[in-house]
């Protein structure tokens, strides 16, 4: 489904040169980013990359040091969180420990002074939505981690926020539960198309959930795009390394023309032509990127390599291949048992699968 295919709820969110610094430390460099109404955007990056800062700016928990923030057409740059109509799901849920499930969920409606019957109706509906019917009177501390997570989500959704913000909401859950909650979140988003910003450091989670992913590093967005964009056309070695597995071989770019680069790859002992990431200049430090599943074993004519290690992954096998120069790269292929350690093979790849990226 594409945004707009179903009726969406929520407003767009726009950062215009938004930046945040603490003294000399730049937590977020000036950032431009627009999240369309109804879109699910994930901020992906290692800790300290600025993704939580960006989320807190959207929520209104922090004020930007520079730039502006818009929700819909409204400038909310200096608007405190309580006037923004956002729904926030915290990493450890931040449920009110002295309240029952119902009271937690009803909180945002009570402080809006809605009628009691209206509150009861909406709370009941949202509890049904997250499959917590019958848990209303429980204390939140009696619930399991997964149930608490759903209460937190219900509490954020019940106020019908213009933007839903989630800060690593599945971080505290075990892997299996995480998988099922991910699918649940996706279902909810596809049904309601609520504008959502989701923070995680788990690339798989980002790919499963999002319309678009913004990869962040050192307080900056490195690249924004669909999962396919990021995987097939990463703008640099960091994004390539953060999304999926990758082989990165040092390369020297000698010439660029028409989106193709001529590059010397010393560890291969040859010069080759491949698609190039936009903005790369000849002479800049660069690398040749080939995904492991694109490395073809037994390709003629090819580069000679020796099988250094074999890792069975079930239906796939990962091969660690040592080149004559001593450099290694990984290949992945459908499991077959024709290779063993020490076997000499020739390897190659299709030209369209190679890409030159800045490092």
């Amino acid at each position, binding site marked *: 489904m594409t945004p707009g295919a179903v009726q969406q709820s929520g407003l767009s969110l726009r950062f215009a040169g938004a930046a945040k610094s603490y003294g000399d430390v730049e937590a977020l460099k000036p950032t431009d980013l627009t999240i369309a109404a109804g879109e699910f955007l994930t901020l992906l990056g290692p800790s300290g990359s600025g993704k939580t800062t960006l989320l807190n700016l959207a929520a209104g928990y922090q004020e930007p040091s520079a730039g502006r923030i818009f929700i819909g057409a409204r400038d909310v740059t200096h608007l405190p*969180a309580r006037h923004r109509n956002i729904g926030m799901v915290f990493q450890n849920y*931040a449920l009110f420990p002295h309240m029952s499930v119902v009271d937690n969920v009803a909180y945002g409606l009570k402080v809006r002074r809605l009628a009691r019957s209206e509150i009861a109706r909406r709370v009941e509906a949202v509890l049904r939505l997250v499959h917590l019917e019958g848990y209303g009177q429980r204390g939140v501390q009696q619930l399991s981690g997964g149930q608490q997570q759903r209460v937190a989500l219900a509490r954020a959704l019940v106020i019908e926020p213009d933007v839903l913000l989630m800060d690593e909401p599945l971080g505290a859950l075990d892997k299996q539960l995480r998988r099922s909650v991910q699918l649940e979140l996706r279902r909810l988003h596809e049904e309601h198309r609520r504008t959502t910003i989701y923070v995680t450091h788990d690339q798989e989670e980002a790919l499963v959930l999002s319309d678009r992913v913004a990869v962040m590093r050192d307080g900056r967005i490195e690249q924004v795009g669909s999962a396919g964009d990021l995987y097939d056309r990463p703008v640099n070695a960091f994004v390539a390394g953060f999304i999926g597995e990758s082989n990165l071989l040092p390369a020297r770019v000698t010439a660029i023309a028409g989106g193709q680069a001529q590059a010397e790859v010393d560890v291969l002992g040859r010069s080759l032509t491949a698609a190039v990431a936009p903005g790369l200049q000849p002479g800049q430090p660069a690398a040749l990127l080939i995904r492991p599943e694109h490395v073809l074993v037994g390709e003629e004519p090819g580069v000679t390599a020796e099988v250094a290690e074999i890792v069975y992954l079930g239906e796939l096998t990962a091969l660690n291949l040592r080149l004559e120069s001593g450099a290694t790269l990984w290949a992945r292929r459908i499991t077959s048992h024709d290779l063993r350690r020490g076997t000499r093979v020739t390897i190659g790849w299709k030209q369209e699968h190679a890409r030159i990226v800045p490092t």
Partner: protein
Amino acid sequence: MARYRVETACLLAPAVLFLLLLFVVPLARLFSLAFTDEGGVFATFGVLAESEVYRRVMLNTFVVALAVTLITVLLAWPVAYALSRLKGFWFALALYGVLFPFWISVLVRTFSWMILLERNGPINRLLQGLGVTDQPLALLFNDTGVMIGMVHVLLPYAIMPLYAAMARVDRRLLLASDGLGAGLLDTFARVYFPLVLPGLLGGATFVFLLSLGFFITPALLGGANAITLSMLIASFVTDRLAWSLAAAGSLVLLLVVLALLAVAARLLPLDKGMFAR
């Protein structure tokens, strides 16, 4: 199993004997005095019940204790809040500021107040100098003096539990409340205050019970004009040699305190870190 029980009993024996001989037996002996008056088993309680003085003193003691508790808690709140927000050097400084008086004898602190609150003491001179009052105020040898001294001594007992409760409040709960659209008053009334309440009530109970039995401070700062129960009991012994009356008065005070504690324990989850995390 039986062997462990014997060993446990042996290990506990010194402590149990110590408490029994030095605390329980004397206490029981004291209370038995209450029932051994010449006038009959319950004669002493009759005397107390009919005594106008005793009733007045009892009432005064409770009123003073309540007032002291109220003032102490009100003063403790901002201090505890500041403590819960401070960090590093300033936190250490503030904490020592609260705890420092603990290391000075109550007697010394009370005498210091006598000097400060005198008719011609520094406080009266300051007030007169500032033009707040023409005549020196009567700050000593009345309930005002007693309350000032007691609040000062008891303040840390209210600050510490309150601070502990405040420090335990997860800041993200307040952010969550804010994000859900609650104004500052709503956040305070619905989230912050309920989470701090156990600490507040714990501190208040502590202060109230301690002030009911306070002796040195009211004796020195209140004098004959502001007699409390503990002073009355002391005077039964030292002035009238009426040991049975003193015992009866002590027993009544102890029972009242125990009853209040029972109610408090019922209402307050003092034993559990109920809102930990």
